[in-house]
């Protein structure tokens, strides 16, 4: 019980912390790729603290509800990941967060916010099935949806699920809002939807969504690390390489539109998962 | 000034424009010059392979001019501009901003005019061609 308590507390504190640090590193690396120096490592934290201290400005009070719910769901997902709970359940809870984010964006009447919300829904439509299929792959490999079973494996899952790992990478690109999938909102605002679904979240509420996004990042990278769960160094390495790839992709791609995303995401993702799953079934 | 200049009247403006279009001229722009308290001058500039052609139309300040935007779509913008800045009204505009292209709602003057700045409602119409 105490062990669980510690784990939960650790997840609640370190989940966003790790996510924030990764985001800070991301910004520095991206800047370097663009021949810039970039902000300090702790920049995301400065941003969030500043946002928390800003004037409370709201468009619709229910946005406050949705931002809170998003954060709650995202952190529960991280907690469950740390508790090595059921993978499918974690994915469902993670989806709850996204849905609330979208509903909050809908509650503003600004068309930018609403179209952003729609695009986010389309992004979810694109990556949710893929995530589930990855989880199915994990199940087929370990015989269980529990993360604990992954840790009980003797050799890294990556060897058996290489294509599904690629699918997870695809999902990660969408979820982290990297080009070519930064459709609903993006880190820098030069896009047709201004800030998309985050347009009308402001001040402290924006801070909440940002923290929740860190949690999401931590969660997905945690998921990635499961593919080399046998060795902590291997896991770390895998996550690092994956994330570097994400940054690289972000910097060598233009933003595409959602039709392309659905076509490519589903086409590529489903095909890769199919190949990998069929192979697993056949075994 | 480079190019050929033709003086035309309100009644043959549209005819000339259409003819010029058939000859393959492109629309460049319209320049409006305020001559005195009554007269304004509209210069229609056209171009074909860097050969300019100008139609010079002298018009009374309180007359409506026919719009050439049905012939040259690109003219709608400059005609709207002249409406705003000089107060000459065009009729038959494909997109009529009704003096709101640059002006706010409450502006009743023609800001580019030196002599008579207050907009009057047009009193004379040209003969329909």
């Amino acid at each position, binding site marked *: 019980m105490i062990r669980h308590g510690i784990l939960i507390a650790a997840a609640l504190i370190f989940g966003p912390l790790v996510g924030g640090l990764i985001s800070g590193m991301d910004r520095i690396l991206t800047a370097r790729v663009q*021949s810039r120096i970039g902000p300090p490592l702790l920049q995301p934290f400065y941003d969030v603290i500043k946002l928390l201290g800003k004037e409370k400005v709201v468009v619709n009070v229910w946005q406050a509800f949705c931002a809170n719910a998003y954060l709650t769901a995202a952190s529960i997902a991280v907690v469950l990941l740390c508790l090595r709970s059921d993978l499918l359940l974690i994915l469902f809870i993670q989806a709850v967060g996204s849905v609330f984010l979208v509903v909050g964006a809908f509650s503003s009447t600004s068309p930018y916010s609403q179209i952003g919300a729609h695009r986010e829904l389309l992004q979810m439509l694109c990556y949710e099935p893929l995530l589930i299929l990855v989880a199915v792959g994990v199940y087929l490999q370990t015989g269980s949806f529990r993360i604990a079973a992954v840790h009980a494996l003797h050799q890294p899952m990556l060897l058996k699920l290489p294509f599904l790992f690629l699918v997870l990478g695809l999902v990660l690109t969408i979820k982290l809002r990297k080009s070519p999938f930064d459709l609903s909102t993006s880190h820098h605002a*030069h896009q047709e939807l*201004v800030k998309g679904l985050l347009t009308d979240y402001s001040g402290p509420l924006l801070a909440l969504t940002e923290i929740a996004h860190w949690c999401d990042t931590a969660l997905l990278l945690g998921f990635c690390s499961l593919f080399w769960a046998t060795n902590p160094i291997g896991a770390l390495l895998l996550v690092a390489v994956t994330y570097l790839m994400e940054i690289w992709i972000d910097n060598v791609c*233009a933003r595409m539109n959602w039709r*392309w995303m659905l076509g490519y995401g589903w086409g590529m993702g489903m095909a890769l998962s199919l190949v990998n799953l069929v192979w697993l079934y056949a075994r | 000034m480079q*190019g050929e200049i033709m003086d035309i009247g309100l009644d043959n403006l549209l005819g000339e424009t259409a003819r010029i279009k058939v000859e393959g001229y492109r629309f460049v722009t319209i320049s409006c010059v305020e001559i005195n308290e009554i007269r304004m001058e509209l210069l229609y*500039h056209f171009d074909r392979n860097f050969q300019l052609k100008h139609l010079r139309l002298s018009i009374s300040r309180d007359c409506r001019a026919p719009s050439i935007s049905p012939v040259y779509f690109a003219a709608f*913008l400059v005609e709207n501009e002249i409406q705003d800045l000089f107060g000459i009204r065009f009729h038959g505009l494909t997109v009529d901003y009704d003096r*709101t292209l640059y002006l706010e709602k409450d502006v009743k003057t023609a800001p580019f005019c030196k002599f008579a700045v207050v907009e009057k409602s047009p009193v004379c119409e040209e003969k329909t061609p």
Partner: protein
Amino acid sequence: MTRTIIPFGPQHPVLPEPIHLMLTLDDEVITEAVPAFGFVHRGLEKLVEIRDFHQMIYVVERICGICSMLHAMCYCQGIEEMMGIETPPRARFLRVIWSELHRMHSHLLWLGLFADSFGFESLFMQFWKIREKILDIDEATTGNRIIVSVNVIGGVRKDLTLEQTRGILSELKSVETELKRLETTILNDYTVQNRTVGKGVLTAKQAYELGLVGPTLRASGVMQDARMLKYAAFDDIAFTPVVETDGDCYARCKVRFREVFQSIDLIRQAIGKLPNGEIAVKVKGRPDGEVTSRVEQPRGEVFYYIRANGTKHLERLRVRTPTFANVPALLTMLPGAGLSDVPVIVLSIDPCISCTER
């Protein structure tokens, strides 16, 4: 089918300048685009009543900061023609050099913004990084980065020393190599092509009839470039306009990208043939009469109509800027495009609203 009405601008991150487009969409496909102007209109043409014809150079330079040198050049050439002033040959060559430098920085700026319009941030950064070199040349030779203010009636104000010309040539060399590196990305990258090829297509006929100018027109396969008028020193410099035939956003991008190299070539030629001599002649008298003047700006042909009455104040200064001519193209291209293509299409004409509204 559900309707969406979006106010696109005046404040919008992809638009560097305030213009408003009221977009009506059905399922992310635009059915109607109505523009609204007047957010930048200042009424500069009327300033001729207050400023004399020499001072007006400073005003026309500020019609638009990006093409300021070419505005001033066009204005000066017009007045010179009206007053019958023969500018010295060195001044003409210097005008070519600075105007082509201006075109380069404008095109590089545009290439960056264009890359940004489809979300390619790193490419934006790279183009703007290269652009800084051009601005450095500007600053070194004229004292200012953007509004170089070298034109006067009768010639130019600044001269280039031999070292400066050498410096320009070596800088251009490095600009050229760096640009070559970006060529594969901006022209051959899959994602870039996906976002630009076939977007906002204008046929040659459409482009011609709408009265378009500049790269927008040339990308549709019409060979028309005001530099063919052989103003300034262009009669001594070998020059063929860059033309593409596809008429889409990709073709416009390609035209501008190639024009940067063309400008490098033109500057090299101009520096190579730079004659010695005076850089300006004294101006006497007052302008009188009317004149038209045309110059190829980065965005296309600018058209000046100047009427003077023998006083030091001009009677009328009329500026038809390239974007003003290209806005109708926007209204033709936007309907039928997707929402995500709006920034790409809008930027593909290289809009300069402060030019348009003056």
